């Protein structure tokens, strides 16, 4: 029985690891798609855009929902945003990464978690 439990824990860990890798892959693909669509932004000449309400208004509906939720939470993971918007985590992760590429959000890794936030200082 104990051996079975051990095996179960191990396989859960493995699945978790696979999921994590898939998510990272997904994020990278999102970045590639975005770059393909809009070209690579030349920073820092193009100063990052401010995520103010007028910008929020100009975003497509699906991104606006994500961006407004992040403004409310200030700093959050894709999981936390998904909880607010009631959409799938993977979907939110894609949208958040798009917003990062567009220059509206910043992303920061802390251990296994990726946090997104609005950069108010630069």
């Amino acid at each position, binding site marked *: 029985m104990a051996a079975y439990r051990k095996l179960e824990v191990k396989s859960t860990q493995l699945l978790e690891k696979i999921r994590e890798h898939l998510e990272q892959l997904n994020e990278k693909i999102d970045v590639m798609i975005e770059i393909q669509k809009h070209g690579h932004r030349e920073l820092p000449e193009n100063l990052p855009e*401010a995520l103010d*309400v*007028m910008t*929020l*208004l100009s975003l497509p509906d699906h991104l*606006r929902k994500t961006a407004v939720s992040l403004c*409310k939470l*200030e700093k959050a993971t894709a999981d936390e945003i998904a909880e607010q918007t009631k959409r799938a985590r993977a979907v939110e992760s894609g949208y958040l990464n798009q917003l990062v590429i567009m220059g509206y959000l910043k992303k920061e890794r802390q251990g296994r978690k990726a946090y997104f936030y609005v950069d*108010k200082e630069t």
Partner: protein
Amino acid sequence: MGKIIAVHSYKGGTGKTSLSVNLAATYARRGKKVCLMDLDFRAPSLHAIFKGYEPDYWLNDYLNGVCEIDKVLVDATKDHGNGGKLIVALANPSTEAIRDMTAKDRKWEMKALGRLLSLRSALLTDGTFDYIIFDTSPGLQYSSINAIVTADVALVVTSLDASDINGSQRMTTELYDLFEKKTGILVNKVVAERLSTKEEQKKFNKYLKSIHNLPILATIPCYCEVLRAAGNFIFTEERPDHPFTETLEALATSVEKL
């Protein structure tokens, strides 16, 4: 958890401030803890109603990051509590401050949105307030859109003026819908003949439903007594038996249910 209610309109002079103040007083009378905030930085007005309350800091200072919100809040419960609690946060009425607020850039407005959003955790989560009421600037401008994005409920005050109806329609579909806000319409300053008989009222309600896609939370007749009060006192407080006060009571209940 408490709620943030933003009172907004397309045009100026629709009665936002009067309705905000009286709605706040109505909730206070119900024993609620209410915070009324003047977010009309271009034409501050609450200081004129809450005369004699000298704040150490203005809401402008809070948004500027000069102080925290507790320094801005002024307790008006002694005079206006009526069984509940009424706290006000005032906008700086000096020309200098108005000029300063109109010259803010996008980055500042983005930070201001963050400051407004954090009022929720500062004032609503621990039960400090049941309601925060934002009295906003008319039209589509930063301070009012920031207020709407922050609010749980938006109330759009409109008169029956053709330009106001048209503007409010556009504003609700092109702005409120995009932010998926719970919104209600308050039709203010309705001329007496539109509500004179049951028949007329029915016709009028049908007309309102044809022009607004959103729930009409109140149709408020134009009362000379309210005009005579000229904003010198809080009407629903002084005249608890007046039909205007009854209308506000009904409105307060509808907003709670929204």
